[in-house]
């Protein structure tokens, strides 16, 4: 299983280990964990600072397909020995893990590049939407232009 979309949390150590276990040709595992940031939720107004949680909505079916496509694209660009992507949905609070991407390779260069590539593409291609809880109710988070720029630096897929 390379891609999971789930409400449940995940075990970073176990997922990282699984990428190398029983594969003696693996020399490098690069991984990334994304967290709900407290200051990402907090804005300038007092109301903004009261934001205490967010809900991640997704498009079941398409989410898994898009993540599989992103992984396949990475595998076509680099020689990889293992890839694992986990993305959570549902209600999350600051400090919660959101996403895990782990890539195993023979050498560190390809593992780092593929891991960052998957994160950059995931940000602009995977159908997730964030809604912050505020005292006035929910507020949808706008997509960041920085994310489009990050995905574009890898060239046309």
């Amino acid at each position, binding site marked *: 299983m390379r891609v999971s979309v789930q409400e449940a949390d995940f075990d970073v150590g176990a997922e990282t280990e699984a990428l190398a276990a029983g594969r003696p040709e693996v020399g490098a595992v690069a991984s990334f964990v994304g967290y709900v940031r407290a200051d990402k939720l907090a804005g300038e107004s007092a109301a903004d600072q009261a934001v205490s949680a967010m809900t991640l909505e997704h498009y079941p079916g*398409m989410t898994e397909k898009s993540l599989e496509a992103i992984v396949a694209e990475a595998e076509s660009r680099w020689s990889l020995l293992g890839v694992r992507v986990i993305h959570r949905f549902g209600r999350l609070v600051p400090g919660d893990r959101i996403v895990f991407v782990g890539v195993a390779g023979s050498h560190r260069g390809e593992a780092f590049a593929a891991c960052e590539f998957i994160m950059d593409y*995931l940000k602009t291609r995977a159908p997730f939407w964030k809604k912050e809880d505020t005292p006035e109710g929910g507020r949808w988070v706008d997509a960041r232009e920085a994310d489009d720029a990050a995905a574009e630096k890898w060239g046309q897929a």
Partner: protein
Amino acid sequence: MSIKVLYFASLRETLGYSHETLTLPASIATLGDLRSHLARRGGVWEALDEGRNVRAAINQEMASPDKAVADRDEIAFFPPVTGG
């Protein structure tokens, strides 16, 4: 031509629909045609107007407005994604 249309996130909330099944007139050939057709309903549906930042997928794959729409397709409209 009968299709299923899904709406997500802020767009779902604005429209008040998460999905609908539509029988389309023969004049609608592309995703862009479908979007204009829906926007012409007026009111909240103007959220689908050409100038609005709305993305779309056909059968769970991101698609541009020139993509052809076929019978039994699953079409989705949604705001720019914010995962990760």
